[in-house]
């Protein structure tokens, strides 16, 4: 749009001649005055833009406002019912809470990481390559990023990278149980005794070797195991016994009896317990037998739960408690690069002399960063944070894609709830519009801050 200027009318240039700078300005002024004298012409030029803005922005906002006060099928006036529903519905309140978490955490973390990356990359030789790497996720669509992180957060350590790393670390420090999830049959002479342990119902004696049958072990795990041996009665009053897998393929074996082909369970810890105190412990050998010293006579045998602990399955990233932080993590992965690039640009404009001066004056790097760099970057940091806030308020795709059905409600945010209310099962566009209006009201203050700041900037 031509801007009217106050330059006095020029003398005019010859047509076809390249106008000198002064002449060009003059021409613009002439056009300006022409438009001013004929307002219909200005209106005509503005019309396409106005029609587009009106049809695509003003009308939808207006209609959403109206729709928010109509009932489900849009035929009757509903007053504030829709808003009432929004503020009483548990699901929507969860969405509000999550949005709050998002708006506070995501921009802050992104900006902080961006600042750190920007300051650090300025110092390293391969800074540009590093910046490129961090910025790269921005090139991916939210949808694709969502799908990627859905896989990253997969519970099964064989499929999800996050848990693969986590379980590897965990298993390095914690031993895994020899026979996870093995258990006795309900009719076996054992009872559960808390903490996943099992204790014999009767007491043991040297004359009668104990037999401890267990089941529930996948056949592949015992494929290489030796056949179970019936323990011989121990000499010198020692207590003996066998722990074995009381099952053969086809299920045709007598319960509680060591049949042919039944496999020994090696490495199981057996404790002799008397009056709640452990008097002796032993481990089963390759043939499933164990020997306890004579002092175990008359004790109960206990198989502690550590024998049967399920393998560590990693963190339930997409469970009800961690789902929102997990999704915020994926957002940070995408947007930290954006923050970094903007802040790096700001950093390039920081006068070097100031930093040098501070260093010469004896300030350490940390002090320079805290007292010089950050204050000088403050305007940029504000821009980045505010931009990300607006971006985060409307977050939808990542949440919609990453959260599984069972925890979608726990991960819910306003934009998603808007969609689900309007086009999900209930198809209540009244409530959906009410949420849209609220979302708009939430964005407005941030926008106002942004616009005022921009104005200040341009006035400078």
């Amino acid at each position, binding site marked *: 749009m031509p801007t009217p200027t106050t330059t006095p009318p020029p003398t005019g240039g010859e047509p076809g001649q390249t106008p000198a700078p002064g002449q060009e300005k003059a021409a613009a002024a002439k056009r300006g005055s022409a438009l001013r004298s004929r307002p219909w012409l200005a209106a005509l030029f503005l019309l396409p833009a106005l029609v587009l803005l009106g049809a695509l922005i003003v009308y939808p906002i207006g209609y959403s406002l109206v729709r928010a006060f109509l009932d489900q099928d849009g035929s009757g006036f509903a007053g504030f019912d829709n808003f009432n529903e929004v503020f009483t519905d548990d699901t929507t309140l969860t969405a509000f809470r999550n949005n709050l978490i998002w708006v506070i955490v995501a921009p802050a973390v992104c900006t902080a990481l961006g600042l750190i990356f920007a300051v650090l990359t300025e110092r390293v030789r391969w800074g540009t390559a590093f910046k490129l790497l961090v910025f790269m996720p921005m090139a991916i669509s939210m949808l694709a990023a969502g799908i990627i992180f859905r896989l990253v957060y997969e519970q099964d350590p064989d499929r999800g990278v996050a848990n693969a790393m986590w379980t590897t670390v965990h298993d390095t420090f914690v031993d895994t149980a020899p026979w996870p999830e093995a258990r006795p049959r309900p009719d076996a002479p054992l009872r559960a005794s808390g903490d996943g342990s099992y204790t014999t119902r009767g007491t043991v004696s040297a004359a009668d070797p104990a037999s401890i049958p267990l089941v529930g072990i996948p056949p592949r795990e015992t494929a290489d195991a030796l056949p179970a041996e019936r323990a011989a009665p121990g000499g010198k009053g020692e207590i003996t016994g066998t722990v074995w897998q009381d099952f053969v393929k086809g*299920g045709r074996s007598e319960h509680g009896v060591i049949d042919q082909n039944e496999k020994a369970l090696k490495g199981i810890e057996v404790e002799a317990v008397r009056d709640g105190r452990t008097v002796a412990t032993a481990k089963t050998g390759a043939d499933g037998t164990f020997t306890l010293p004579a002092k175990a006579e008359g004790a109960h045998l206990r198989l502690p739960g550590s024998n049967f602990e399920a393998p560590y399955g990693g963190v339930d990233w997409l469970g009800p408690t961690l789902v929102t932080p997990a999704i915020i993590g994926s957002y940070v992965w995408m947007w930290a690069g954006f923050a970094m690039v903007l802040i790096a640009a700001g950093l390039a404009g920081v006068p070097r002399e100031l930093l040098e001066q501070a260093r010469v004056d004896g300030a350490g790097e940390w002090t320079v960063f805290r007292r010089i760099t950050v204050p000088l970057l403050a305007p940029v940091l504000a821009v980045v944070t505010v931009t990300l806030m607006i971006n985060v308020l409307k977050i939808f795709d990542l949440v919609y894609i990453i959260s599984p059905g069972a925890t979608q409600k726990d991960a819910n945010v306003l934009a998603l709830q808007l969609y689900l209310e309007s086009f999900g*099962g209930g198809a209540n566009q009244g409530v959906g519009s009410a949420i849209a209006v609220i979302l708009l009201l939430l964005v407005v203050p941030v926008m106002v801050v942004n616009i005022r700041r921009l104005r200040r900037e341009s006035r400078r």
Partner: protein
Amino acid sequence: MRISHAARTACALGAAAVLAVATAGCAADDEGSEWARSHKPTVELPKLNGQKLQVAAVWTGGEEDNFRKVLDEFEKRTGARVEFVPTGDNVATYVGSKVQGGSPPDIVMLPQVGVLRQFAEKGWLKPLGPRARAELRKNFSKGWRDLGSHDGTPYGVYYKVANKSLIWYSTQAFRDAGVGEAKTWKQFLDDAQALSDSGVDPVSVGGADGWVLTDWFENIYLSQAGPEKYDQLAAHEITWTDPSVERALTTLGELFGQRHLLAGGNGGALRTDFPKSVTQIFGQLSDPEAAMVFEADFVGVNIEGDTKARIGVDAQVYPFPRVGDTAPVVTAGDAAAILKDGKGAQALATFLASQDAAGIWAAEGGYVSPNRNLDLDAYPNAPQREIAKALVGAGDEFRFDMSDQAPAAFGGTKGEGEWKALQDFLKNPSDVRGAQRALERAATKAYGK
């Protein structure tokens, strides 16, 4: 809606495999169905030379190809031209927009009872003519005729249906554990226990998909509380806090409450989606991760598409065990309904109600017809015959999928209503009362009464 979605997704995934299987039947000739050539027509169709018809259905891929074979036969016999139009996932929306636009297809295959009634109410559907009615009376039991009717007027022909009361199992796992096909719920649980003893996870539940859980509940409820209560609950005439619901959930809790009976435990089941619940059984044939999975006949499509298991050899199927007096038969299906009346549309509806049309697709596999006069030999393998037999044999005691009869907000939306409430129940099976309250709350909101 969700069942057909699921079936659709499953079918899209398995389309290639269905084709591969279908080649056995159609490789010999590309231009028609062998079944149609080897069987005498049982229904007389008018000559419709030069007429043009449009049929809309959700089917794509292998299903679309098989249905085209049926339409080809119709074209051959009548001389009409039939165009197939895929509707996309949401048939109701598609038809709604077409009717309002003034150019509806002549015939549409409607996947939900509720939609059929709703369209009939609006006057969009045209009643079936005398010939189609005659064919319907001859071949369909009253239960199926009623499902296709509204206010006593027949509108729909249930051409393709799903039997949703099936247990699919790994032959290997059952042989290893020495168990067989269960007839009662108690035996089913005992078998599960024996399977667990053998070291395999007994029951694979695709709890990440809420509709799998609603199907579990519906089968138990139908068998335990009986068809009348089932209908009342489906219409929300009795509340979800009813004692019959409590009993059914408690029964379901006998399985869900024992974490060693579920593949991956309760947490694992919640994270397992439907396709994975099938592949974890049939993915590794010699060393299965789990032994059996409950769901509809379309499990077969996943088995063929995603695994190397052969149906009838490595993968077998038996009807859902009875919990109460009789075994449940829960179904879903697509009904052909006329949107634009005419000689051609009536003729096609008549044809689809005949065993001629049913036989053509039956021979291709991945299909069950409620047509009681269709020779079971038309089906290509024993499991398919078994499925069809159980469905037709149920007479009028079968019931249509309850969650498909409910408003979508209750019975068909991810993370909401019945889906979410039953997922929470799977997470915490001891809280029957809490589940009932959650269900009732969601139902009250969705049914609006």
